């Protein structure tokens, strides 16, 4: 999986500036991992890595269309939403006698889309900012999860619970994320998706171009909802049970991965590939740190490094693109003025 992403990234990096930061970070982390934790490159290690990183990859992918739809399109609700769907899969579905893969995926994707449509409608119709709506939904869902399920418990359906201990990479653990990436690749090439991009870059231009803003924005949330559902299934496979709080930190991790992946909260700019790379980076940071002997301090190091990498990638991104451009232009003008005095 990692190699696969690197291959396509290698082809793209010469053209895509926003992918530079996540790819450079990925290479650095892989080099450290190669020397310090070579276990990652065994079949066992790869499968473990994939199981561990897949929920975050899909969660970040789910945040991507909302970030593109902008402005300040951050979906804070994703952690509690994944937790709610996790509880529904493990505790709810067996109650009505369903545990087949089809039922689990249908339930997860259905719930994810439903939640996102509600939020998208509030954002698009009421014109309340995305941060406010998703923050409110974060609070509602996070509170509700602990009320529905005060303590962790239950076990995931057998076919799903076995994912967590997967020792070979060629199983559903690989095929499900791959299918999700293919789905992303297809959706992101449609006219509908281009409309989302235009709306995110400049909603006034989109409006005067005749793009229906409300359906387009809700549509972005529907796409997000599908990936929230798949992320929740992968997450349930990872922990193998239902837990009222363990999924909540995915909000912060996914926001971090999204930004490292080169998304701009201004709207209009975010790439699926960048998001996936960002998520792999985040997972690799905690993997690499776990190979050092930090003992009890390990979680502090993960928190510090994740925060520092987020800030560093923001600074790097700001210098490579956007805000440094006027200065660069001014500099070129000055240089040009000095070097070619006779032109004018």
């Amino acid at each position, binding site marked *: 999986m990692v190699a696969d992403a690197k291959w396509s990234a290698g082809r793209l990096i010469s053209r895509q500036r926003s992918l530079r930061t996540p790819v450079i970070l990925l290479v650095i982390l892989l080099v450290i991992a190669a020397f310090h934790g070579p276990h990652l490159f065994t079949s066992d290690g790869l499968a473990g890595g994939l199981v561990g990183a897949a929920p975050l990859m899909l969660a970040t992918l789910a945040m991507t269309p909302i970030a593109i739809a902008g*402005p300040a399109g951050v979906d804070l609700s994703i952690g509690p939403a994944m937790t709610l769907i996790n509880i529904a899969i493990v505790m709810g579905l067996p109650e009505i006698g369903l545990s087949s893969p089809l039922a689990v995926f249908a339930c997860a994707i259905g719930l994810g889309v439903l939640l996102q449509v509600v939020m998208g409608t509030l954002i698009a119709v009421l014109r309340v*900012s995305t941060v406010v709506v998703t923050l*409110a939904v974060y609070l509602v869902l996070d509170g509700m999860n602990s009320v529905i399920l005060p303590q962790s418990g239950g076990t995931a359906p057998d076919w799903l619970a076995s994912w967590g201990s997967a020792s070979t990479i060629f199983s559903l653990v690989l095929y499900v994320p791959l299918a999700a990436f293919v789905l992303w690749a297809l959706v992101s090439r449609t006219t509908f998706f281009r409309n989302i991009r235009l709306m995110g870059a400049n909603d006034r231009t989109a409006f005067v171009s005749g793009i229906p803003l409300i359906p387009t924005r809700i549509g972005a949330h529907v796409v997000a909802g599908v990936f929230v559902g798949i992320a929740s299934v992968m997450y349930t496979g990872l922990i193998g049970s239902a837990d009222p709080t363990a999924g909540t930190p995915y909000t912060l991790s996914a926001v971090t991965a999204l930004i490292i992946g080169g998304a701009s*909260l201004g709207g209009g700019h975010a790439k699926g590939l960048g998001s996936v790379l960002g998520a792999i980076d985040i997972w690799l940071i905690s993997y690499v740190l776990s190979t050092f002997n930090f003992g009890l301090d390990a979680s502090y190091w993960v928190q510090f490094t994740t*925060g520092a990498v987020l800030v560093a990638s923001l600074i790097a991104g700001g210098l490579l693109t956007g805000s440094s451009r006027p200065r660069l232009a001014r500099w070129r003008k000055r240089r040009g003025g000095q070097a070619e005095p006779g032109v004018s």
Partner: protein
Amino acid sequence: MRAIVGQHGSSVMASVVLLALVVFGAVSIDGFWSLINLRSSLVFASFLGVATVGQTLCALIGGLDLSIPFVVGAANVGLVKLLNDGLPSPVGIVVVFVLGALIGAFNGVLSHRLRGQSLVVTLGVGNAVLGLIQILVSSGGNSGISGGTIQGAVPQWLQSFATANHTIGIAPAVILWAALAALNIVLLRRTWLGRSLYALGGNRVAADRVLISGPWTWTLVFAASGVTAAMTGVLLLGYTGSGYAGVGDPYLFTTIAAVLIGGTSLVGGRGGYGLTVLGVLILTVLQTILSGYSLSSSAQEAILGLLIIPAVALYARSPHPRMQI
């Protein structure tokens, strides 16, 4: 509706909601009006109130400070460590405030440069700071941190600062909050600096044209937020008596909720600290009532979330693109 809401709509509406909640609480819950309950509620309100000073200022210029809970936790744990190392408590507190201001200033500089990204900037800085402080504190041998908590000798005066049954009749923390609130309201309404926050939040380009320095104001505002967050951490240390890195966690979203429910817009340029005081009081009274009905803290969180959208939908809707062309 819009005519009634008008210019002072949010303060009227928030006051009505607060009054209704107080009446409802007084009627339906025994001991709501008791002196003990009022005094201890005010202490809780003062913690949230001090922490939201910074969030309100950031919201006014169109930013958002998510580093508050992390700075609260870092100040809380860091001060214990400084005291354990033998620093006199006033010096330790000053050091913590200065560090809070520096962290905030860094947030401000970066957030201004990367416009519209203050949410992620502060999130990253906050995580880095709290992680770093915990690493530094834990390397201190047996006096260090374990499981996020750190024990130490918290001075008596700091502990009594946040006790509800203080000899002067009210916790000094509440007086501190009241003083901060008064200072803030005067600052925002009557000074050039205060008005320039509204100008910046309203329209960045226009503010720049009338020579309001964006970078300087953003730095100052976020530094102020860092100081008030550190202050909350110190107050909470006095209240609990031992350091805990996660002590600020509830303030991540409740500070934003208090700002929004009061009626200050996150887009910038509209609102004020007076409104946030109302928001803080609404949240505190609501919490007292819900606890009175023996609802768990999770259920309270859910109800709080349900309140936010209607509050924002009344005042802070963004205009339709057709109105912006």
